């Protein structure tokens, strides 16, 4: 959490349109239309981390199904049958006139659906450095100490999304993406340290099959250290407009 999250001001605002490359082939087996439509707004944040060239940060990646896949050209939103949405989430998706997806991938609440996303503080342990096209975190830097960040509130005004962050308000029409560069923060992140191993195999002599294991060399020794550095949060709000909801089946 910044010292005074309400008073922070935007440094830059960039609006872009048509950023989604739509596809008619979502690749979800056995989709069945629920026959409902909803307006969808996605919210995510990524963090630019300052680090010297020779410093390697500890980063994590995770692979798995996204909550849903979107084809804007075809006006479709298809929930992934292996994704994180619960049955209740899917019902909400069917019934809601307006859905906001918080896909930062670091929030305690994950990327659950909500009819509105209200401004709140989130304590995070990992900072996404880059977002995948579907707003999943491509990889994240691990923090040495938790950080509180503020998530914007998003509400509907007609077909547009109204975004409130601190004292600033923005309007995001369908098909547009709002990018907000937030004030720099100072954080402590984990970094990797590396030291060449100098001994025999790291395996104990009496483990497993010694004959088979003997040739496995020791690893390059890595450790963890801390780096105090600056990060710049970038908040992205994407109004996907009105989409037809379908649910994928396994």
């Amino acid at each position: 959490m910044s010292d005074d999250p309400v008073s922070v001001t935007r440094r830059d605002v960039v609006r872009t349109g048509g950023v989604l490359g739509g596809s008619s082939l979502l690749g979800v087996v056995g989709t069945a239309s629920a026959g409902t439509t909803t307006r969808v707004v996605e919210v995510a944040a990524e963090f630019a981390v300052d680090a010297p060239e020779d410093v390697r940060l500890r980063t994590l990646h995770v692979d798995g199904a996204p909550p849903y896949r979107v084809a804007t050209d075809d006006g479709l939103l298809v929930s992934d049958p292996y994704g994180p949405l619960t049955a209740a989430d899917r019902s909400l998706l069917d019934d809601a006139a307006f859905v906001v997806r918080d896909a930062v991938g670091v929030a305690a609440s994950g990327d659950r659906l909500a009819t509105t996303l209200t401004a709140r503080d989130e304590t995070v342990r990992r900072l996404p450095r880059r977002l995948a096209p579907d707003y999943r975190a491509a990889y994240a830097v691990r923090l040495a100490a938790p950080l509180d960040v503020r998530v914007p509130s998003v509400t509907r005004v007609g077909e547009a999304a109204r975004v409130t962050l601190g004292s600033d308000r923005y309007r995001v029409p369908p098909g547009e993406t709002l990018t907000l560069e937030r004030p720099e923060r100072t954080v402590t992140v984990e970094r990797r340290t590396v030291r060449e191993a100098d001994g025999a195999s790291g395996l104990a002599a009496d483990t497993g099959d010694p004959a088979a294991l003997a040739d496995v060399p020791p690893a390059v020794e890595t450790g963890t250290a801390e780096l105090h550095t600056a990060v710049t949060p970038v908040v992205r709000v994407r109004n996907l407009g009105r989409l037809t909801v379908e649910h994928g089946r396994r």
Partner: protein
Amino acid sequence: MADTTPNFDLLAGEFGRRPRAAVFLYPADDAVYDEWVDDGPVAEAVVDGLDQFVEYGALGGYAAFTLAESEPFVADDGGAEYDDATKAAFVDAFEAYTERHPELCGARGLHYGVAGGFDGGGGFSADELDELAFSTNCRMVVGTASEDAARVEAFTKQELGHALVSYRHLAETSVLVENGSHMHEHDTGVVYPSGEVSPMAVTYHDSHAAHGPCGNGRLHFRGYNPNYTDCTKMAVKRTAEAVFGGEG
């Protein structure tokens, strides 16, 4: 913590020829061991994946091991939530477990946790030469919660691929990857004409499978293909050459 040092059993492989890699499987609990590791889909996927790299010439040899007697490495709340953050929590839990057993994870290779509480995979990004199974004690986890053997096999191979490919070196030496993060390792996967997705493109069939120099533009998803693409195999070969100086 167990009173005695857990032992690994040799699963498969001939480790003599270089370039070579070792993989150590750590089942999260007895149920995971019985269903997925002991003659199960995860173990079979690891061996088949490594065999593919050997057959292609990317690896000269390998050794795969299983940890039969294991204490659970997943925290009590493992699997309670089902999102990306929780997958990362599995990575954290597995890291903590391996650090309690330096006698095990001091060995060079992929130290691979197999858990039941989530669907997917994850790990410390193998996006540097010193983060690879070829040189360090690279740590990844795979989840079996889908109970879908073909999907679990696919994710098992995807994380294995991450542990053996360095995007950063590829950016310097080959046309496979121009630049970017480990996500470009997913670019080496495709959706085959049959609609089956190759291991590195699982869950990325509508994104990474469609672009990059290896993509073929096909997006339909009709299941899983157990075979890595030649593009993925070449990526492993180039990475191994970089680590071992072309000599293995």
